């Protein structure tokens, strides 16, 4: 498989006051292959969203490189190259309520990208918008409506149509389902899957809903405090998690079997996620890890391949 996005040593720091730096994403590396879905999971505040936005250069990276289609987008690139990147890499947002401009009609929202990247007449644009609306399961009638007249699920569909309008190859799905109720979640995820098959899209699927991530992803990365702690293909990761943090996450997934639910052993994590302003030394997870000992405070664990295609960042493994 050909790599589409290679993230190497990506860093994004925010200045949050005098001499304090919040390391939202710290030395993150992974590769996304053409046509696959890479899931990215982790608890709130671990840097998933920042990671997704930094890859698209919506935030200026503090360091590292983002190699898209063989070109490093974090170096000076000619304008045509940047516009190409903007055309081929898109994003779907978490909150369908703030992601659409309340003063624009659905048609104006969806056609915004078309007018930037393609030369189309007004009627051609209207035709494309109509087609897209039908594709995502709405009707042409919606074109003249305003976002506030739509439900959450419908808005999210419009958000997807806006991203699709420029014919992208790569879409960052930034928790596209977490603001929706469960039945709508399944619709949106299945829509994303069928669009992927049809248009050979590549997804970076950010979520904290583990079962959804398993459902949609080919490979899954687990993030903790701005770093990847484990990366493996979906089946392997869910069947045999290696990193203690991943194990704890997996044991938090509810099952549909009440009898099993009563007896099954849950691994509970103690305490809160430490502040990314002042993270623990060595392994960042050691403050909550049941297996941690003195050596964990000394060395920063590297992401190592423990079995083919299965990477984990734990010195114990």
């Amino acid at each position, binding site marked *: 498989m050909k790599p589409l996005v290679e993230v190497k040593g990506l860093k994004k720091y925010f200045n949050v006051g005098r001499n304090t730096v919040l390391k939202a994403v710290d030395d993150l590396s992974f590769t996304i292959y053409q046509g696959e879905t890479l899931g990215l999971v982790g608890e709130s505040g671990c840097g998933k969203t920042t990671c997704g936005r930094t890859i*698209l250069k919506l935030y200026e990276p503090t360091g590292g490189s983002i190699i898209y289609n063989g070109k490093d987008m974090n170096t000076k690139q000619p304008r045509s190259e940047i516009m190409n990147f903007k055309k081929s890499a898109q994003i779907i947002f978490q909150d369908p309520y*703030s992601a*659409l*401009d309340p003063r624009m009609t659905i048609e104006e*929202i969806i056609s*915004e990208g078309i007018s930037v990247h393609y030369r189309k007449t007004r009627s051609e644009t209207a035709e494309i918008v109509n087609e897209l609306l039908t594709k995502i399961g709405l009707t042409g*009638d919606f074109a003249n409506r305003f976002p506030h007249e739509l439900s959450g699920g419908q808005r999210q569909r419009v958000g997807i149509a*806006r991203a699709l309008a420029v014919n992208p190859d790569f879409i960052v799905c930034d928790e596209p389902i977490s603001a929706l109720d469960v039945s709508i979640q399944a619709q949106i995820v299945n829509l994303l899957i069928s669009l992927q098959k049809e248009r050979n899209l590549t997804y970076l699927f950010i979520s904290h809903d583990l079962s959804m991530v398993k459902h949609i992803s080919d490979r899954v990365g687990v993030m903790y405090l701005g770093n990847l702690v484990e990366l493996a293909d979906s089946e392997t990761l869910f069947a045999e998690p290696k990193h203690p943090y991943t194990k704890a996450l997996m044991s938090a997934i509810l*099952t549909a079997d009440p009898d099993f639910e009563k007896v099954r052993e849950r691994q509970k994590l103690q305490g809160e996620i430490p502040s990314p302003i002042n993270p623990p030394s060595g392994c960042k997870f050691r403050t909550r890890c049941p297996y941690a000992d003195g050596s964990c405070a000394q060395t920063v664990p590297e992401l190592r391949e423990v079995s083919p295609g299965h990477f984990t960042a734990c010195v114990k493994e």
Partner: protein
Amino acid sequence: MMKSDIPKEKFEIIGADESQQELIGRARVSYMKDAWRRLKENKTAMAALVVLCFLILMCIIGPMISGHSFEEINPAHRNQPPSSEHWFGTDRLGRDLFTRVWTGGRVSIIIGVSAALIAAVVGILYGGICAYFGGMVDVIMMRILEIFASVPSLIYVVIFSIVLGNANLTTILVALCVAAWVGPARLVRGQMLQIRNQEFVLAAQALGVSSFKIILKHMVPNTLSVVIVAITFAVPGFIFTEAFLSFIGLGVQPPNTSWGALVAMAQSEFMFFPYQMFFPAIMIALTMLSFTLFGDGLRDALDPRLRK
């Protein structure tokens, strides 16, 4: 491990035939057209607009149809009550009040509207720069603004009126605008900061829309309705301040006049000739009320979320 595989067939788009679709497809209307339609439906706002148009029209043609000049002194006709010759009566120098009310209205309305516009333009620029550049620029500019805001605005107005001397339209406008931009500037800055962090702005950036276009198509339209409403609400305030200035003798100087100056002049005769105060006072009240009601309607009309 839970079984999360919901059969995909359950979520296929099965399509819908025409008869099941919602029938009411709205005709394509632009944002401004739609706002205007909603404004027309608001009876209070339209009544206020009609009153405003009438007042402005009378200010333009009023002095011409009375047959008297606003500075013509007629000692034989002093302090006359309203009559067929002098429709609003005359003042203590025998000047025709009908002519003077509409001449004064010109000054009052021009000052009110232009002061509000100047304050809004300066405020949008100042607040926009604060929000757009952020960081140190924002901090310094906001501190300067706070210094301006911490002194009661009437003090500026009075000091500037005295310093600039011989009060005319320009000096009064300058005096009024020195402190008036502070409110709109804060409003615009707050609004723009809020919009800048909305995800639809990020989405536009991800689509490669240029910064200029993002400001023009997303930031400004989402700020503008707030500003337009602020302007309409500010107009009566300026008319009132001008009236106050003229009332204490710092405003328009005789023989020129404004509604405030007319009220001040009538004050000394109020016990004997109350109609001299009644007409300019009712004009001030009508204008302020109309602008406020119209502003209210405009705010509702410009918000598509209130569309029925």
